[in-house]
């Protein structure tokens, strides 16, 4: 059996390999960065146009008051859940194969949350009044409406984003110290010195560090679940057919983990190549991630089926109409595409030969992400097109190029942030890889000793 990591890898080598990623990536890195920058340019251009002209240029209308922005918002929120899955849940479960890959997954969490947050603002008709939705004491005595699921969203995202950043940062402190110790004097050294907070790896620091990390991880798990449940509440708490579904919160959480895992596979493959992390991001870990993704895909498929079945079995005519509309109406191609990408494509992952086949996995992960993006769109748009009030049905609304441009730009924005992060901070956790190597070599030694004892 392949190993998750080579046990005899020298710790100094680990430092060297990871620190190299901060300085000398492959040329593809710069290509990605430039492409991302160009995409951001498109998005920003569209947003400036929309800001100045009015959100009507997105071609939304009555009843389609929400468009791709909200769908993409959910998509990015969903993507953020993978980091928590890998760093918090697997941490609690002592799955140590997460160690080489959790750092970038956490970074993904943070940056996809930031991207999602942007969409909330882009979506607003009066972006310049965004701060009205924040609960801050003011001389007018005005508060936001705490009953609104959108406000819960804001609170949850704020909590999640700040907790994620803290979690990411706290977990990175020992690595920052390594960077500090190894960098030549310069801005980087200053930055790392500042951020490392004087970490020396003393037993007191490690002791408190361990408890803190564990505690925050414990908080993060219910937080992550609550965040996507609350995003689901934006829909489930409303009265609209197709949204007012009890199973939405778990369904959203499953979808979030799913899309996050798929994104991790994509980024895994990219980082592995760009930063020459073949030693750490091994095929064995990839295989485990694929299996995890497959499992979550099946959970998602099940919850999807549950949603359809409960709608179908109910007497909620309006909700049933929306479901029929999804499957047979204007959105049918996208809906079936979603089913295909979300439920059929992951079946590939059940086959061993594909589980570590990089080209196949890359394609599959992109398709899964496409499927998950479509899923969010298929939650938002069909209900608007086919609500309670037949006079206000509109099956023909199509998002304008401005809308597509901003959605497109958001992927560039995410890639830009993520890639810059990976170049500035160690995207593989050095100290944890060392722990992994240490424990595995210990286990190996013990195993050998045990075997010797048998002989």
């Amino acid at each position, binding site marked *: 059996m392949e190993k998750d990591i080579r046990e005899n890898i020298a710790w100094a080598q680990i430092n060297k390999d990871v620190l190299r990623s901060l300085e000398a990536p492959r040329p593809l890195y710069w290509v990605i960065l430039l492409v991302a920058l160009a995409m951001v340019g498109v998005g920003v251009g569209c947003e400036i146009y929309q800001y100045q002209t009015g959100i009507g240029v997105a071609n939304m209308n009555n009843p389609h008051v929400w468009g791709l922005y909200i769908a993409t918002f959910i998509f990015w929120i969903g993507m953020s859940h993978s980091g928590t899955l890998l760093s918090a849940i697997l941490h609690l479960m002592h799955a140590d194969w997460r160690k080489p890959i959790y750092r970038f997954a956490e970074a993904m969490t943070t940056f996809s949350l930031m991207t999602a947050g942007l969409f909330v603002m882009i979506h607003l008709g009066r972006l310049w009044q965004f701060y009205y939705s924040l609960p801050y004491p003011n001389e007018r005595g*005005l508060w936001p409406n*705490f009953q609104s699921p959108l406000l819960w969203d804001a*609170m949850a995202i704020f909590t999640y984003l700040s907790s994620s950043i803290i979690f990411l940062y706290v977990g990175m402190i020992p690595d920052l110290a390594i960077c500090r110790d190894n960098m030549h004097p310069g801005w980087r050294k200053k930055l790392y010195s500042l951020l490392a907070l004087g970490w020396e790896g003393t*037993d007191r620091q490690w002791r*408190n560090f361990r408890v*803190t990390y564990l*505690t925050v991880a414990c908080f993060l798990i219910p937080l992550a679940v*609550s965040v996507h449940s609350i995003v689901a509440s934006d829909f489930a708490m409303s009265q609209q057919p197709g949204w007012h579904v009890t199973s939405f919160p778990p369904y959203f959480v499953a979808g979030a983990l799913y899309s996050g895992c798929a994104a991790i596979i994509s980024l895994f493959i990219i980082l592995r190549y760009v930063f020459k992390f073949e030693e750490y991001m091994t095929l064995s870990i990839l295989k485990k991630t694929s299996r995890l993704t497959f499992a979550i895909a099946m959970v998602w498929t099940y919850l999807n089926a549950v949603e359809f079945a409960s709608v179908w079995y109910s007497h909620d005519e309006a909700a049933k109409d929306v479901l029929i509309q999804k499957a047979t109406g204007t959105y049918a191609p996208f809906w079936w595409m979603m089913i295909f990408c979300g439920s059929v494509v992951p079946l590939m992952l059940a086959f061993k030969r594909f589980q570590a086949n990089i080209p196949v996995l890359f394609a599959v992960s992109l398709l899964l992400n496409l499927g998950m993006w479509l899923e969010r769109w298929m939650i938002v748009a069909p209900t608007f097109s086919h609500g309670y009030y037949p006079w206000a049905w509109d099956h023909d609304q199509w998002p304008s190029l401005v809308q597509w441009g901003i959605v497109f730009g958001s992927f560039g924005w995410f890639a830009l942030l993520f890639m810059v992060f990976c170049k500035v901070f160690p995207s593989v956790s050095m100290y944890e890889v060392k722990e992994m190597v240490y424990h595995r070599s210990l286990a190996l030694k013990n195993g050998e000793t045990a075997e010797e004892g048998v002989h």
Partner: protein
Amino acid sequence: MSRHHLLALFDNFDEAEAAIVELRAGNIRGFNPDDLILKSPIEHPEVEGVLGNKPVHIQWFTLVGAILGGLLGFFLISGAQANFFAQIKGGKPIVPLPPNFVLTYEMFILGGVFITVLGFLICAGLPAKRSPLYSAKVSEDQIGILVSGDESAIAALKAIFSKHKALEIQEEAGK
């Protein structure tokens, strides 16, 4: 009486552990076994037993933070509703419990996380000035044992370190 600081670096972790055991058991005059600090590149829970009973208090910070966060959340929100939104919304009461519970929950977590991290910084003594006896090797692949003792104990300490194959022993005469 001046105190001296010693930092010994080991690349064999078992030896380092053995050294600690010996230091603590040795009853060296002028050296308090609690004046021993382990510096390591990774976390060593198994060494902790050797280091003696050193409790962690972060969970108390967590508890207080979470409770405070939750209470603040609930009363801030309900108070704001009661004062400002003296208008009915959608047939719901002015202070509606389900949304307030959701927000209280979020604030509970937020308070918990923030105060835990605050507790971490306090308990771990961060941010800290780096001690003069520090080697970059400690963040790479070696374990450092930092001891401080009276001048009289130095020789005994050095002997124990050397016995356990310390790669390097740094010494500093402190205050």
